[in-house]
Structure formats: C-alpha cells, structure tokens
C-alpha cells in the first residue's frame, strides 16, 4: 500500500513538473486591458491557435477584457525579424539573463520600439519543448521567457501560456493623446530644486558623555564621580561629575533649506539628569529627590544635498554646525518629615546661569511624498563658559566654574513635516 502511495506521489510530482515547464525570467511586461496580442513564430505553423489563445486568456485572467489575437504576419515576412526569430530559437536557454537575448540589429530594435501598446508573444517549438518569449515596446530584449512541454494539444498549451505569463493585473490602454502626453511629460527625477524648503519636527533620542570609538579612560573619572555632602567632587570641570550623563533627549526644531544646499535650523532640546549623590553619605537621608532639567536653545547651519531616490522618496544627507545656550534648572525636594534641612543643603552647589556651547554632527532626512519626513542625526554637543575673558590678578582666588567643559554625544530621530515656499 505504502509503495503504491509513493509511486502515485512520484507520478503526480512528475506530472506537475511536466505541466509547469520552466520560466527563465519574468520581468512583468505591462498587461493591458483589451490587449492586442501578436503571435510571432519562425515555424511554418504556430504551436498555438490565435482564436483559442484569446479564449484561454479570458478563462485565465478575468481582468483582461476582450483580447484580440492574431498571427504577426508583418514580422514573419520581414527578413530582419525572421533572422532574429531564428536566432532567438537557437539561443533560448535557461541560464541566460535577458540581456544575452537582446536584439542587436538596429532595424529590429526599431521594430520593437514601434510596438506601442501591443504585446508580442514569441512562441516556437524547440525539440520536445515549446519556447515562449514576450516582448513589449519598453525593451529590446524579451521581458519574460521560458519553456513549456510540448504535448500536441494547442488549446491546453494556450491555457498554460495564459496562466503562466498573462495572469498579472491589467491596465487600461492609453489613448493616442495620453501616450503623447506621457512621452512629453518631464521626468520626475529631473525636476528643479525648489528655492526654499521649510520643515518642523519633533524628535526623541539618547545622549551620553562617551563618544563612540573613543577610549573609555577619557570619561571614566567624570562618569564614576559622585557628589558628597551636596558639593564635593574630585573635580568640577564637567557637569557629568555631578549629573548622570546618559538618558533620553527630546527636541523640537524648525528650519529651512535654500536651493537644496544651505540651511538654517532653530532647535530646542530637553533632557532630565539626576544628581549622582553618594549613597554612602548619610547627609542625603533627608533628601527625597534632586535633579536638573536641561533646556537648550540652539541655532544650526546645515549643508545638505537632496537625492531623489524614487518618485516618492527624497533622501537628504546633511552636516550641521551650530551654537547653543544651555540652562540647568534645579528641582530638589526633601522628605516630608524633615523639619530643618542640614547646613550642607543650604550651601549646595550651584551651576552657572547659562552655558554656551557648540553642536556638530551629521544626519539625513528621508522625505516621503515631498511632505512627510523622518530625520535621523547624530553628533556632539558641548557646554562651557566663555573662555575669551582676559585673566585677572584675582583669577586664582575666584571659585572655579562648574562644568566649564561638558561634552556629550547624542543620537536622535524625529518626525518631520516639510513644505515648499
């Protein structure tokens, strides 16, 4: 019983393989509704019947409307076309890419380009197989090609060809005027660069003190530092000695690009940093929370270039350089049961009112349908004090500035809306 099953399945497999034939390549020629199909063969008689093939098409593709099929006598009487047909018959092999089947004769190329919206079905009997190739006006090589097994039944063969190569979605044939309009329409990829493109966006990201691909020991002392007794750290050159450096970053921005090349952008960034209090220090027992809100306002200059990747997607890589002002707003709270805070609480560290810094980085905007964008960017931002003041004799006596050199790396993504003015 088992053996019989195996035998039956082998026969079934063989039968399906024999039925399916082989498709060498299928680059989906345009399927028109109510198409005109020209059957072209170098043989004395075509292996399929034009009328029956039309019926096969209607059986296999309900969207095909009313196809017209006929033998392509013009090409069968033309010596250049006959030579190419014979050549094609010889050269149709499974490993070949379409470009190896390209028509080389200029007259043959011209014939193919003059097809307009007709579909040429090349079909010939090649030994025990039927070779099939489909041409349309868009290429001087077959758009699809393959073989089917020959079994003498013209109707069955027509059905196989129809289901294998003509089952795609159909489109309405264009009128003469529409074709003319399409041919003279400007290419979307060559359109002019708009004078001014504006955008607004909101973004979210992440920042940390460590810049990727740089050694850990540049940051170790800042990152590991903790604050004792509300003000004591080993050094105070970076704010990351006091604050937790890594965390989410939010931004709102608006900008514009002139001539697709130079841009200006106003940006607001917000982050929240906890103070890194030393957990071993008992003075913090009174403390409920202590954190700083970081508000930053900056102005960037962008240099960019737009590449239209497809009709609906423009990719704009850019580099930016800018300056920013950073404000750290303290938010501190004691536990409810604390009546009087410690003395150290009263004289805790204070940051500068504002820090000045720079922003530098690269990014890219991906704009879909000219309006809806995704922006990705990464860069380095700094915060510090104006170092251009002349040293005074009292400089040594003055207290050091907290966070005079605070640098972090950030990466962020945003949703944007673009429009042209």
């Amino acid at each position, binding site marked *: 019983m088992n053996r019989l099953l195996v035998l039956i399945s082998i026969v079934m497999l063989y039968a399906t393989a024999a039925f399916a034939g082989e498709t060498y390549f299928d680059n989906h020629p345009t399927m028109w509704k109510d198409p005109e199909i020209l059957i072209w063969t170098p043989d004395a008689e075509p292996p399929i019947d034009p009328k029956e093939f039309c019926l096969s098409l209607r059986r296999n593709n309900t969207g095909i409307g009313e196809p017209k099929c006929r033998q392509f006598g013009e090409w069968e009487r033309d010596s250049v076309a006959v*030579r190419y047909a014979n050549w094609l018959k*010889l050269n149709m092999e499974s490993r070949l890419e379409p470009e190896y089947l390209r028509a080389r004769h200029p007259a043959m190329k011209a014939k193919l380009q003059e097809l307009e919206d007709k579909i040429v079905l090349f079909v010939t009997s090649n030994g025990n197989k039927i070779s099939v190739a489909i041409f349309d006006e868009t290429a001087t090589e077959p758009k699809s090609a393959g073989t089917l097994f020959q079994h003498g039944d013209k109707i069955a063969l027509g059905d196989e060809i129809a289901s294998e190569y003509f089952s795609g979605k159909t489109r309405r044939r264009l009128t003469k005027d529409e074709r003319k309009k399409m041919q003279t329409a400007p290419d979307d990829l060559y359109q002019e660069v708009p004078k001014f493109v504006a955008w607004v966006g909101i973004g979210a990201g992440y920042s940390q003190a460590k810049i990727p691909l740089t050694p850990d020991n540049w940051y170790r002392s800042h990152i590991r530092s903790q604050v004792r007794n509300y003000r004591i750290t080993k050094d105070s050159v970076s704010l990351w000695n006091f604050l937790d450096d890594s965390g989410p970053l939010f931004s709102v921005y608006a900008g514009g690009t002139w001539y697709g090349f130079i841009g200006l952008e106003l940006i607001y960034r917000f982050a929240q940093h906890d103070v890194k209090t030393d957990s071993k220090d008992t003075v913090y027992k009174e403390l409920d929370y202590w954190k700083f809100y970081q508000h930053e306002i900056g102005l960037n200059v962008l240099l960019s270039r737009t590449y239209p990747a497809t009709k609906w997607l423009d990719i704009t890589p850019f580099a930016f350089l800018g300056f920013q002002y950073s404000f750290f707003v303290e938010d501190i709270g004691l536990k409810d049961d604390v009546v009087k805070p410690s003395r150290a609480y009263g004289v805790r560290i204070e940051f500068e009112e504002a820090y000045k810094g720079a922003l530098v980085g690269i990014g890219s905007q991906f704009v879909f349908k000219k309006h809806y964008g995704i922006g990705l960017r990464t860069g380095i931002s700094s915060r510090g004090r104006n170092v251009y003041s002349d040293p005074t004799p009292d400089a040594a006596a003055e207290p050091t500035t907290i966070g005079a050199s605070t640098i972090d790396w950030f990466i962020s993504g945003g949703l944007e809306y673009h429009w042209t003015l």
Partner: protein
Amino acid sequence: MRKPFVLVMLILACALTGCGHSYHWTQSHPDYRQVPYGDLAIAGTENAFVLTRAAWFAKKLEISTDSVQLKVTSFCEQVFLDELKRAYPSFTRIPKEIHKAFPEESQKLDDRIFLKGHIPEQGVVVKDSEGKIPPRILILHEFFIGTDLKRELFFDYALIHNESADKKTSKNLSAVISYTLWDNEKQRPLFSAVDEVQKSIITPTMADMESLIRTSVQQIRKNMYAGVVR
C-alpha cells in the same frame, strides 16, 4: 580601541579619493564552456594591423617612410597567421569582403571599456573561404603596434582623447589587441578581450617585431583559455 578608528578613517579616505579604478579587460558569455581546440577560423586580420609612430619605426628599421606602414603591417599579419597555423593546424580564413560586410558594433567589457568591431548579424551563419561553416571564428578587431602603448589610452572612453606626450626614448615594443571569439553556430560572442603585450627593446628590429607578434598570439590563446566559464 585604536583599530576601529583607523578603519573608519581608511574607509573615509577611500570614499573621498575613489580608491582607484580597476578595469575588466575580458568578457565571457555564460555559455563559453570550451576553448577552441585545433579547429578555428579567423577574420579581420586584413584591416586590423596599425603601426603607430610610423616615422620613428621607418628610421629605426631603415624602411622608407612611404612604405613602412604597409610593409610592417603585412609582415606582422603574416607572422600572426603563421603562429596561429602552428596552434590550430586546420585553421581557415573568412574572406575580407565577408568580414567587412558584418555590421559595425561596440561591445561593453567594463563601465568604461568599449571595443568596436565588425560583428556578424544575429541569425546569419558565416562561411569561410572554402564555403564551409566553421563552428568558431576569432575576429580580430584591432592590433596596434607601437612603443610603450597603454591599452586604457585606446579603450577607456574617458581617456581616449588625451594626447600623449611626445617621447624621445622607448623602453618597450608593445601591442594592443582587441578581439572576439565568435560562436558561429549560435551567432553570439563567446569571449571578448583587449590585451596588452610589452617587450623590452634597445633598438627595434624585424626580429623583435616577429617575437612581439608571436607573444601576442600566445597571450590571446592564454586569455581565451582563462576566460572559459567553469
């Protein structure tokens, strides 16, 4: 920690400078499975040979300037055919008129390398001088003979209009050859290539010429062997 940094810098430098262009000088058809063996036809030798720097050669070889082109090229053609005869004993020739009637076409070897020549039509079988149909034809398109020739100056479309500096000294006798191995049965190009052969000389003699041509034929044969798709 240094290594990735160096790597990134290298990639960046490479992207900025383009890292140089490397050419493909040969092109094989996916069905080129067997090198011609014993049996070959040849076409195009009558018009392929060109001698550059003719005046200089005329002086060195002591031939009059008027006839140097004709004499040297016909000598080279004869050596070329003799050498082929040794390699392919039953080799035949395609008549000049038939080769000239092939349509002129260009073939792409590389983004920038195009060779030009007379290639038979699709669907037309070529017959040799005896009226037989040879299975494979070696079509010689161009055979430049000169001194210190560089093939990119002849075939890279970005460089062909560059004028080369007039040189007083010549280190090498050189040949630049473009050819196609044609499948006459299925009318398709099996293998196309541009070769460059250099031979160091002090003063050129006809013997040097002969050995240059012989080396060129060997080079063509080696290349046709290497080009087989395995």
